[in-house]
């Protein structure tokens, strides 16, 4: 699906952030043994193919005052109060405090099928959210507060392409 050059470029930028300098692609192009123009053309192609989702700044949520976060697991299968898709859109997708939302295959000893990461200013804010939004569920959502971040990186694609 990807050409060798595209793989090299994707592999490189999955491991390297964008430099903050007037010509941030020159070093990358040199490392990839190509011209800057060619590199940018490949990146644009990957973007057109929707393999690159975006190029953007990632803020530090702790520094931005969002000190608390939690993984919240929901059993949507047991949601009894209305349309599930509408609930997901309104409660998770439209709420900026929710950064991740995935549908997952549940496990018998952890019977949840929808997983969200929530960033908030306090434990109470997260608890209130879960109490309020979790009211219509047969199985109470599980709240797993973050104790410590042990690893958080961009997924290195080099070995996976």
């Amino acid at each position: 699906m990807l050409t060798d050059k595209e793989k090299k470029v994707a592999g490189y930028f999955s491991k390297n952030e964008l430099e903050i300098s007037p010509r941030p692609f020159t070093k990358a192009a040199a490392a990839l043994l190509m011209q800057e123009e060619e590199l940018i053309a490949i990146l644009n192609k990957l973007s057109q193919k929707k393999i690159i989702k975006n190029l953007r700044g990632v803020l530090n949520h702790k520094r931005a005052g969002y000190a608390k976060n939690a993984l919240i697991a929901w059993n949507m299968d047991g949601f009894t109060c209305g349309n599930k898709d509408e609930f997901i859109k309104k409660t998770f997708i439209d709420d900026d405090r929710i950064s991740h939302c995935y549908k997952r295959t549940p496990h018998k000893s952890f019977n949840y099928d929808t997983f969200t990461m929530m960033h908030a200013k306090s434990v109470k804010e997260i608890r209130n959210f879960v109490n309020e939004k979790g009211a219509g569920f047969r199985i109470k959502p599980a709240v797993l507060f973050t104790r410590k971040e042990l690893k958080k990186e961009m997924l290195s694609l080099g070995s996976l392409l």
Partner: protein
Amino acid sequence: MSKKYYLDDLMKSILSKTQQGLEISAEPYKSLAKSCGIEERELISRLKWLKKEKLLKRINFSFNTKKLGLVSTLIGCQIPEEKIKTTREIINNRQNISHNYLREHRLNMWFTLSARSKQELKFNLDELKKKLKPKEIVSLPTEKLYKLRLNLNVN
């Protein structure tokens, strides 16, 4: 521990616009600067400051792993306190694991595992199970991504 920052409106606007996205071109900061109404030089020096102060983590491309044919799973496991350090080392050394967190739950360690196919994912998971010998482990394969975007209000 965490410093309080009072950012001027321009700083806030820079953070917000950088978070929204940059164009892919030879000089992406030039057009970003224009949309912030400042010179590129000033934008770059401000971005460097934001990065130094760790308000801006980084600027990077994000990839659609599904389009790349990758599969992934979220794994939760129960690791006794005394084994957390060694387990962390095993996990953090793996390139196919990008995130690993300690959480307040019976299942106290959570990480994501990616692979090229379901078979490879299962193989890697089995191998990890053998190596980590957790008291309990659950694998929750990704079926669908509804949302992946951290948009922080900088005000």
